């Protein structure tokens, strides 16, 4: 269904490609794609560069419509897209620039365990995690919240569930925005969204969401790794999930309500999937308040699963999680829109940065970073695929200069789900993973096939591009040794 992109892509340097604003009527800024020569060929295989050009048409967009190297075709915006809009210049907020899974994100928990000592327990550990952390279609969470509780949870964020015993105070400190976006208003979240979220807080979901046990395979930056408490051979836990049905419904409600909003404000769009509203408008504010509430739900979701993962480790290794050193290294959102201050052409602006499949990557010294990361930069967590690797990076100065403090969010798909299933015919992905030393458990029939390693680009190439561009810097490569999927 996807057609190749045949429009212009002008090389700027080894890792940047421009779509000039002359390409398409209505483009207000250039498009800018980060990729090397190999990745750019894959990127041209679908419509995602066209989507980069479309986003460049949004009112109030500043500097560039950006795409990270893990870019692929998405809804309105491409996945891997970053766009900053200036509310004082008529800038808009677009739900398509956040995505259905609001605050889909990743967190990384370290342990004191060394893989060499725990290798024989891996099957038991993965089984325990699989039975403890709810995953897959129709699986409700271990805790159900009443409507007033849900609203409070969406207002207070991670602190709400930590106070109820699902985690440690230090987890909050190690979460982007301390697990709570200011300006959330749960009164703008529909009853249907509340119903969808009622028993889903603390559930993994399915699709590309996962919980992985990973071993630190290679350290690239010893100082940053040391600050994060990472060493080669150590076991870590990575959790990838979002706001579940509640967030999907907030997006759905907004898309429905904003259908006619562009016409009301005289906004012409090249693609109706980019429906949007001026940030200062009633409609724009309503979506932002609901989106922030859903984002806070997502942080609580990952927080409860952190607690459950600690319980599973504790059950298998017979020690309390504190003794196992299961501290949260960091939690990052990669589907979100946030108001952030930037200098643009010598002017201080508070911009609305849409990150859809892109991770915040603030450099050392940024005031939003927790004290312990102030000197090394913000940890950027980049899941790859379940057979090869994931990465821990830190943000660098180039991110503020070029990408509105953003880096990539993953490897990026290169195969459709259908193609991945066809490519799995006659193979056992579970066995292939086992041969690579990965114990995998999946609730769905096709989860492992659809998410097999070959379905993704090589994450090494993706992070190398942003390392070369001084957007983010490699700290550690993690190799999966245990996977649970929905």
């Amino acid at each position, binding site marked *: 269904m996807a057609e190749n992109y045949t429009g212009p892509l002008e090389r700027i340097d080894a890792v940047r490609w421009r779509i000039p604003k002359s390409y398409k009527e209505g483009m207000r800024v250039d498009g800018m794609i980060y990729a090397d020569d190999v990745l750019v060929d894959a990127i041209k295989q679908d419509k995602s560069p066209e989507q980069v050009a479309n986003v460049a048409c949004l009112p109030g967009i500043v500097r560039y419509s950006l795409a990270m190297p893990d870019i692929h075709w*998405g809804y309105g915006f491409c996945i891997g897209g970053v766009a900053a809009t200036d509310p004082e210049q008529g800038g808009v907020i677009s739900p398509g620039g956040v995505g259905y899974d609001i605050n889909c994100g990743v967190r990384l928990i370290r342990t004191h365990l060394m893989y060499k000592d725990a290798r024989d327990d891996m099957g038991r550990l993965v089984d325990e995690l699989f039975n403890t952390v709810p995953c897959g279609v129709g699986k409700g969470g271990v805790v159900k919240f009443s409507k007033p509780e849900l609203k409070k949870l969406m207002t207070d964020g991670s602190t709400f569930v930590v106070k109820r015993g699902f985690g440690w105070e230090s987890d909050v400190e190690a979460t982007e925005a301390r697990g709570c976006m200011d300006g959330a208003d749960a009164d703008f979240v529909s009853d249907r969204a509340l119903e969808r979220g009622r028993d889903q807080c603390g559930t993994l979901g399915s699709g590309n969401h996962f919980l992985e046990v990973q071993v630190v395979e290679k350290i690239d930056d010893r100082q940053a790794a040391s600050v994060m408490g990472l060493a080669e051979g150590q076991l870590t836990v990575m959790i990838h999930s979002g706001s579940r049905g509640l967030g999907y419904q907030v997006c759905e409600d907004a898309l429905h309500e904003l259908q006619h909003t562009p016409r009301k404000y005289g906004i012409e769009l090249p693609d109706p999937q980019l429906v949007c509203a001026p940030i200062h408008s009633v409609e724009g504010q309503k979506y932002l308040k609901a989106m922030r509430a859903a984002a806070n739900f997502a942080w609580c979701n990952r927080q409860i699963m952190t607690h459950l993962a600690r319980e599973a480790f504790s059950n298998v290794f017979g020690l309390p999680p504190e003794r196992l050193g299961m501290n949260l290294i960091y939690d990052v959102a990669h589907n979100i829109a946030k108001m952030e201050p930037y200098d643009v052409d010598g002017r201080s602006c508070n911009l609305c940065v849409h990150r859809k499949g892109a991770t915040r990557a603030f450099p050392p010294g940024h005031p939003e970073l927790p004290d312990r990361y102030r000197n090394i930069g913000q940890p950027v967590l980049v899941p790859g695929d379940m057979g090869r690797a994931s990465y821990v990076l830190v943000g660098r100065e180039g991110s503020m200069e070029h990408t509105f403090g953003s880096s990539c969010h993953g490897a990026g798909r290169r195969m459709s*789900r259908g193609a991945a299933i066809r490519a799995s015919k006659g193979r056992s992905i579970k066995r292939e993973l086992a041969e690579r030393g990965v114990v995998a458990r999946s609730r769905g029939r096709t989860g492992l096939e659809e998410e097999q390693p070959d379905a993704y680009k090589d994450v090494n190439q993706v992070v190398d591009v942003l390392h070369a561009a001084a957007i983010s810097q490699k700290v550690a490569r993690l190799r999966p040794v245990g996977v649970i999927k929905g």
Partner: protein
Amino acid sequence: MEGTFQFFDHTADMGVRVRAGTMPELFVTAVEGLYKAVGEIAAGRRLEPFALEITGDSSAVILRDALNEILFFLENRRRKVVGWSRVEFSPGGLEAHGSAAIVDDAKSMYDREVKAVTYHELGVRPVDGGFEATFILDI
């Protein structure tokens, strides 16, 4: 034309193309496609009435909104529509009545969770002998 559906490739999500002789058949077949995307959904024997009423500006949006209702009914009420007694599709809306049963998770075999039926690539068009709809499921 007998109602048929097939999945088509999308980078991260899943496309569905549906064909049927009439608009009501198109809707009923699209529901089958949606269920199939989720997996093999087993339902109990005890039936209860199900009714759906959707209004909208276009056939495509009405179809999309109706499918999202079916999805919500499946995901949150754990009910599957197992038969249709009356389906009326007009330019301004859809009215459907049928019977539903409780999903039997123990007997179901799931493939994937569908987040939503999106506006992405959404369309309904007349074709030889009936209608064709396309839509993308966000996975």
